[in-house]
């Protein structure tokens, strides 16, 4: 048996999920006594790929082509499916990132595989992989098994821990997949990424604000705390709908699902649709004036007070701590 791990990179840098997926795939490979091969696709990526050895990769296959500088759904689909066939693997792990979620279903059709999407844990039972995946935005956890011979799993970012590299280097093999113009029927031509703060789906800490912040300008308090912590900024739908914050910050059932180590909710009531997107955070802090706000039912630590008065003190305390 052979397993393929897809290690995502963007513009010549590995995403954290590349290490998470490699490590999780290595653990499963061990339990199943399977061989592991890791795949990297992109442009100018051959050099960096040995680094995956530090997270459990031994053999890395790279498809390195200048036309793959940006993501192309159609070209990537062909590459992954061809490598999977050539390598004779029967299981693929992708990250459940925007790229992985886009790619996995397309690849699954080429390989006639079932997909367990957005998994938060994996186990092996009687030689079979059983995956847990949240449904109804985390209100329920579903355990699933894939029935087809070929199986694909996408793993939710930030949930599987990669730890730090053990310093090993993997063997890197360059392979080529023939691509013509038709393979780039849909193709990214440019990326616009704000480098200032991590995205909520990738951040290990999120500072999030709701209508209790009272006015859009008060979000500079949220941003100030976020920057001290190196955190991402989140928002409730109420403030996104009021145009106080951009919609890509919205956390919740119709926003983003997040699972950071620390989620700090300021002036957020904790409506069921909001909780749906963040209740699997490892530690939740709530600052709210109303002691009966539902957010306190999921919070690990709460302060019942005005968030606008509390945030400057909290930011200062953390600054003091970090400078020690």
């Amino acid at each position, binding site marked *: 048996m052979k397993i393929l791990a897809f290690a995502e990179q963007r513009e010549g840098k590995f995403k954290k999920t590349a290490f998470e997926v490699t490590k999780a795939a290595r653990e499963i490979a061990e339990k199943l006594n399977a061989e592991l091969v890791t795949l990297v696709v992109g442009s100018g990526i051959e050099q960096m790929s040995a680094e995956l050895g530090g997270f459990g990769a031994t053999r890395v296959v790279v498809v390195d082509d200048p036309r793959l500088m940006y993501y192309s759904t159609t070209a990537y689909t062909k590459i992954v499916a061809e490598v999977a066939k050539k390598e004779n693997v029967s299981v693929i792990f992708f990250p459940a990132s925007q790229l992985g979620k*886009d790619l996995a279903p397309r690849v699954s059709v080429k390989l006639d595989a079932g997909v367990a999407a957005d998994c938060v844990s994996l186990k092996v039972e009687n030689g079979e992989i059983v995956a847990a995946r949240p449904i109804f935005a985390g209100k329920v956890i579903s355990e699933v098994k894939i029935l087809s011979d070929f199986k694909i799993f996408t793993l939710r970012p930030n949930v599987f821990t990669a730890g730090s590299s053990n310093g090993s280097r993997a063997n890197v093999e360059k392979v080529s997949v023939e691509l013509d113009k038709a393979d780039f029927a849909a193709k990214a031509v440019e990326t616009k990424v704000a480098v200032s703060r991590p995205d909520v789906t990738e951040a290990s800490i999120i500072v999030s604000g709701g209508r209790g912040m009272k006015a859009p300008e008060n979000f500079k308090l949220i941003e100030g705390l976020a920057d001290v912590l190196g955190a991402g900024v989140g928002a409730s739908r109420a403030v996104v709908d009021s145009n106080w914050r951009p*919609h*890509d910050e919205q956390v919740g059932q119709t926003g983003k699902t997040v699972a950071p180590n620390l989620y700090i909710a300021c002036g957020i009531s904790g409506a*069921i649709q909001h909780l749906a997107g963040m209740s699997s955070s490892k530690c939740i802090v709530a600052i709210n004036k109303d002691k009966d706000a539902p957010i306190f039912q999921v919070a690990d630590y709460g302060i019942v007070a005005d968030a606008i008065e509390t945030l400057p003190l909290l930011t200062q305390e*953390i600054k003091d701590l970090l400078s020690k």
Partner: protein
Amino acid sequence: MKIVVCVNHVPDTEARIKIGADGKGIDKSGITYILNPYDEIAVEQGLRLKEKFGGEVIAISLGGESNKETLRKTLAMGADKAILLKDESDRDSFSVAKALSDNLKEINSDIILFGKQSIDFDNSQLPGLVAEMLNLPSVSVVVKLEIENNQVVCEREIEGGHEKVESRLPVVLSVQKGLCEPRYPSLKGIMAAKTKLIEEKPVISNSKKVEIVSLRLPASKGTGKIVGTEPTAAKELVRLLHEEAKII
């Protein structure tokens, strides 16, 4: 322009989900169903394309009799035609996609719109599955869309920003919040929708590739600690996060 919008009928976001007696499905009693919120955006986008380029908007949904409510809503918003692929059985994404694409093959549309995700099983799989089955290009989580001379230029959401993607037509798109604001059906629209016919088609094959072993509720946390009732409690909070939770 021939525009198809695929829509799903899902439990309301407020719904408290209970696990059914068999432990593998949910207890559907007492749940209100709605047009999947992302699909509402897809319908709106479809109507705007029709308003700009002319043509028709066809809504299609696979599911039971009750999916007609959702199709009715798309008609009330302004869709020209609705098709129900009637099937009450439990399906996985692959088998829904197979049934949809078999039907979509015959429609020959210029653009197929999806929501980015159903808010019930949160799979985000159908747009990619259908696109690959129909051998069409696709762009997912679209937040900006322009079409000119058969060329599609979109922005899709990626971590921390956006990616500008170009594609040819016909194309499959899955839409994300922020693309456009769905309209409310007008009274006239609602009345007109009542008299429009919803075409029904049977679906036969169902070959699942993913099986639910069991459902469970997430482990609930013990109730947390109220650190204080004054802003100055910030100091104690930081101490707890540092020493007890060991997070910062």
